[in-house]
């Protein structure tokens, strides 16, 4: 066993030795150790290099507040950076790596930053990295400085492979959530659960409940835990960090499930996110000890007194053999006695206070410990570990005299205690400055947050926690010449903070951003109060006048995996498939994503690429017949005596005059007058309509209708029901469409006179009930077969077989797009972008002119929407018919416009048209309809493309092919 282990005591299992490595060096610890306590037992305090100066650093704490000892843990293909060694539970085979050092932890080339540190002060980055103005204000930063700095600095390396672990999520509700399982939290949980009814969740960040009670051997802890465990209304979560406190008592907890295990159980989640809605939250988060900011206070071996005591009593390891104690607080006397009892020699207690409690001093003296009151540490020496301190006596004029040296191999410091108010502050509670504690304490609870703080986090300190010091301790000579660290993780010194105030940063928020104090991953848990103290002194303002920065979530860093939870891979988002999807898969279709839907993009035959397949599919539709899966279209069944009235109010068109059995193309605007959706609407009965919407607009349109029905027109007797997924929709398009359907349809006369274009009939197809539309989005004779989704595949296969007989086949969304563009049919969201009116896209004819109102009517009357020169839908033909312009390309009057020339418009759709034997494009162009015949230009990197403006119909302008 290590020389540094105490002979007995503590909560480690001395019978279970565990082997682990640190930077490849094999060492031994015990079950119950943290990585930090095990390393200390092996005499290792140097665990990392600081962020900016690459100074050697060791742990200053034994818990979540640790700023220095950040390491990377690797295991079986996994790598997790920036873990606090003070919280990593040791397991057999643990492999940890130090960070931010190259080539090695004890010889780090980046430490040269320490030598040039006079030039790396606060605001250095802002002032220095300005490049030559001619190259743009940001050029030098993005091209030179930032890449170099990022390569040299930084914390651990982000893992590069996919996360191998699984993460779970639970939503939970409870009557009382107790955060913190120390003395106060356990007491609160006991009380809250006593009636056996209230559901209580108790969580604690550590491996064991107990908090500071784990440093002693009281029986109460064990009894209390047994009582709580026996109550079925209590859920106890260890290794669980409450990291976010949101509105209405919603608290996020991170439960670590497997990181402490030597063998990872297969399939078990690594972490579990608890999203808890609590009736009441009891914060029992305790207090964090503050360091003292004295010169060179960052050498390995210098730690918080409470942490030193914890290592000795809970983990059974002496942080060293000879300690110097530097304190402003009574609790360090107890720590000194505990260390002494653990076999540590105490060089002296150096107390900054002129008159420490005489009883405490007497107790120390009795134990053989020298006490120097009114004394400060003025410097430390030692390479990778502190070896000596110098101390000086405070003088009545506030100067410091004397330079006695004391040998020691660690320093235990205490600037007093700070209530851990992070979660209270996150809950938007208001803090109050407490003169006695020299700290902020919870004051006013935010509305809607039923919570209370108990114990040390509420400022209820025990007697031995008395005494506190904020700011930098006095030094002999010029304080600007020493490095007294305030924020260890971001390497911010007292001098940096004073510099910030001299440069005009008087708000604590500005000081924070200028110096980066409190902005590291530890969120300033150990640094905020000292930083405020220095600002307060430099500005001559009281500490509450200086103010306090906001505490933000998360309390400690949280893995990305936890937030992703189950939403990964195939489960990231629902993948919606139509009833015909698997048929298309079997046919070898290529798919495209349309929102959450998978749609068949094209059906390549042997050797075909997308162009060849699309060209062939277009030829099928124009030449014989094509069938297309249109099941994703949004569909709404609107029923009630006021159905037509409702449609009149929401769509621009007339609806009351639509006959039963007929269809009409409807256009939907928003209140501003812009096109937001379109689709064919069929009248099945006087009081029943079948509405279709765009695929992407289905949910939005349904929600908009429900909103209007519930809030604007609750008097209308009409109700809507989504039938999007009730029906599979099969479009049959082409001159042979009727011939394909004829053998399959019963009870519907397909003849043109009986069943004209834009009509709907109900009957049967393949024995299945159908709503059969005669509509066309291709310009050819067309039908759309609606059948119940469960029958979709069978009906599709029957129709496909007939189509094959007619020389036709299936086509995908790419061909569908080309075919409709040849006819100049718009796609909402492609020809429109939220700023197009019906007239802009050539659909002004659809508006019911006599209607007194509809959604968007007032918007259309705004001067801007009625002005001349608006962008209008036109067609484009490239002078070179083989060139297909890029969608989104800008259009100008000149081939080489001067820089800054505004575009006339842009290309909205562009395809190779097999039908036309040339490229075709749709565009929106200012005053476009008046420009038909003009030659315009599409400037591109390889030279401008000349185009002629034409009417936006490239094929069958008279619409004769609709009749087959």
């Amino acid at each position, binding site marked *: 066993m290590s020389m540094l282990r105490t002979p007995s005591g503590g909560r480690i299992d001395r019978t279970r030795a565990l082997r682990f490595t640190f930077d490849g060096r094999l060492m031994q610890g015990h079950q119950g150790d943290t990585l930090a306590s095990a390393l200390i037992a092996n005499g290792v305090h140097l665990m990392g290099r600081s962020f900016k100066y690459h100074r050697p650093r060791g742990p200053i704490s034994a818990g979540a507040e640790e700023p220095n000892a950040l390491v990377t843990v690797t295991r079986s293909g996994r790598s997790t950076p920036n873990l606090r060694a003070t919280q990593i539970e040791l397991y057999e085979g643990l492999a940890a790596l130090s960070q931010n050092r190259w080539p090695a932890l004890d010889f780090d080339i980046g430490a040269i930053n320490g030598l040039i540190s006079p030039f790396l002060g606060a605001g250095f980055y802002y002032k220095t990295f300005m490049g030559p103005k001619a190259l743009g204000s940001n050029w030098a930063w993005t091209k030179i400085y930032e890449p170099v700095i990022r390569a040299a600095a930084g914390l651990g390396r982000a893992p590069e492979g996919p996360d191998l672990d699984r993460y779970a999520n639970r*939503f939970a509700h409870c009557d009382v959530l107790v955060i913190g399982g120390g003395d106060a939290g356990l007491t609160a949980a006991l009380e809250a659960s006593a009636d056996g009814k209230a559901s209580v969740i108790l969580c604690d960040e550590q491996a064991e409940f107990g908090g500071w009670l784990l440093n002693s051997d009281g029986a109460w802890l064990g009894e209390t835990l047994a009582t709580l465990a026996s109550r079925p209304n209590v859920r106890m979560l260890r290794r669980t960090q409450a990291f976010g406190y949101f509105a209405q008592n919603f608290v996020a907890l991170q439960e670590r499930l497997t990181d402490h295990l030597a063998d990872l159980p297969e399939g078990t989640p690594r972490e579990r996110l608890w999203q808890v809605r609590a009736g009441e939250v009891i914060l029992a988060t305790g207090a964090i000890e503050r360091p003292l900011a004295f010169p060179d206070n960052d050498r390995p071996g210098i730690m918080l007194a409470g942490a030193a005591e914890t290592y000795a009593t809970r983990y059974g390891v002496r942080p060293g053999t000879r300690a110097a104690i530097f304190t402003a607080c009574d609790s360090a006397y107890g720590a000194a006695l505990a260390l002494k009892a653990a076999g540590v020699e105490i060089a002296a207690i150096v107390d900054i206070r002129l008159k420490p409690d005489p009883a405490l001093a007497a107790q120390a003296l009795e134990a053989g410990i020298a006490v120097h009151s009114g004394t400060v540490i003025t410097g430390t020496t030692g390479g990778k570990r502190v070896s000596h301190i110098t101390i000086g006596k405070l003088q009545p004029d506030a100067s410091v005299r004397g330079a006695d040296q004391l040998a020691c191999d660690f320093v235990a410091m205490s600037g007093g205690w700070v209530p851990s108010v992070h979660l209270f502050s996150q809950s938007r509670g208001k803090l109050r400055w407490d003169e006695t504690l020299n700290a902020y304490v919870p004051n006013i609870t935010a509305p809607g947050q039923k919570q209370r703080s108990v114990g040390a986090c509420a400022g209820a300190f025990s007697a031995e926690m008395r005494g506190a010091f904020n700011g930098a301790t006095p030094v002999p000579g010029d304080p600007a010449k020493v490095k007294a660290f305030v924020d260890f993780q971001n390497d911010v010194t007292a001098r940096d903070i004073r510099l910030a105030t001299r440069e005009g940063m008087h708000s604590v928020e500005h000081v924070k951003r200028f110096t980066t104090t409190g902005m590291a991953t530890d969120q300033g848990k150990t640094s905020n109060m000292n930083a405020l103290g220095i600002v307060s002194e430099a500005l001559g303002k009281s500490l509450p006048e200086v103010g306090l920065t906001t505490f933000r979530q998360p309390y400690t860093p949280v893995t990305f995996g936890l937030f992703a939870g189950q939403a990964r891979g195939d489960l990231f988002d629902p993948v919606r498939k139509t009833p015909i999807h698997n048929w298309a898969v079997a046919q070898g279709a290529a798919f495209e994503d349309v929102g959450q*839907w998978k749609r068949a993009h094209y059906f390549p035959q042997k050797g075909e690429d997308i162009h060849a397949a699309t060209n062939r599919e277009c030829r099928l539709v124009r030449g014989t017949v094509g069938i297309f899966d249109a099941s994703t279209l949004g569909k709404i069944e609107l029923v009630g005596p006021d159905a037509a009235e409702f449609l009149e109010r929401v769509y621009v068109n007339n609806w009351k005059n639509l006959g039963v059995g007929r269809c009409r193309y409807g256009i939907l605007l928003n209140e501003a007058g812009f096109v937001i959706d379109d689709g064919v609407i069929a009248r099945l009965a006087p009081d029943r309509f079948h509405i279709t919407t765009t695929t992407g607009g289905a949910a939005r349109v349904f929600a908009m209708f429900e909103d209007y029905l519930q809030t604007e027109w609750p008097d209308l007797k009409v*109700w809507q029901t989504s039938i999007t997924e009730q029906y599979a929709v099969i479009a049959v398009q082409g001159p042979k469409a009727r011939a394909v359907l004829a053998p399959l349809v019963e009870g519907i006369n397909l003849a043109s006179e009986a069943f004209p274009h834009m009509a709907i009939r109900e009957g049967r197809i393949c024995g299945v009930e159908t709503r059969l539309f005669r509509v066309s989005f291709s310009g050819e004779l067309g039908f759309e077969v609606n059948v119940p989704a469960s029958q979709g595949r069978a009906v599709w296969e029957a129709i496909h077989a007939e189509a094959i007989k007619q020389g036709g086949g299936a086509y995908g969304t790419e061909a569908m797009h080309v075919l409709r563009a040849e006819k100049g049919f718009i796609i909402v969201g492609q020809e429109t972008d939220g700023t197009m009116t019906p007239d802009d896209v050539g659909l002004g004819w659809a508006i019911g002119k006599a209607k007194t109102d509809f959604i968007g009517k007032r918007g259309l009357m705004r001067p801007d929407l009625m002005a001349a020169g608006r962008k209008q839908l036109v067609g484009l033909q490239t002078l070179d018919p083989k060139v297909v312009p890029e969608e989104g390309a800008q259009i100008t009057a000149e081939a080489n416009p001067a820089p800054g020339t505004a575009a006339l418009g842009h290309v909205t759709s562009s395809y190779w048209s097999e039908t036309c034997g040339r490229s075709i494009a749709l565009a929106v162009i200012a005053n476009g309809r008046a420009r038909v015949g003009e030659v315009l230009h599409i400037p591109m990197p390889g030279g401008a493309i000349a185009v002629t403006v034409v009417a936006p119909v490239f094929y069958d302008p008279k619409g004769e092919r609709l009749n087959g």
Partner: protein
Amino acid sequence: MAKTLMAEPPKSKPRLPNDAIAWITAAPPLARFIFRGSPEAEAAAGSAYGLAFPKALNRAASIGERGKPGARVALRIGPDELLLIVPIAEGKAVQTALETATAAHPHSLVDISDRHTGFALEGPHAADLINAGCPLDLDERAFPVGMVTRTLLHKAEIVLWRMGPTLFRVEVWRSFAPYVEALLEEAAHDFL
């Protein structure tokens, strides 16, 4: 019909019995309707349906055994919206009877038999699996047997009906069903 919620059993550990967590049983094909209308229309429809529609919000009424002749379910999922579920063979007759009985009262009755698929989720951890992706409080005090609601499971809308302390019925739009079932199976890993 029953299947385990474990997508892949752990290789090194014995496979847990299905009922240690929960299991999914797919519903047979069923006829489903959405009924929306005035209270008068509801009253008229209820008597024709053979089962009075529940008046209270988020409450279910049912008689008979699912899929068996005469079975009727009425789930109030909105102030004026009911989801009705009957055996597939009785769908047409029920539709006709309801339309006849409510002819005098404005209403909407729409066939959505194929819009949904349904399944039962049953087992000691049934509520926990749903709570892996649904933020509702499923404690029996807050969500008792007989309660039904439209809610979210992760990003999918579901209708969730508690039929027993450890038995839920889930109705979901058909294209979302694979997503919902896969998420429940994934969540089962948290209870191994």
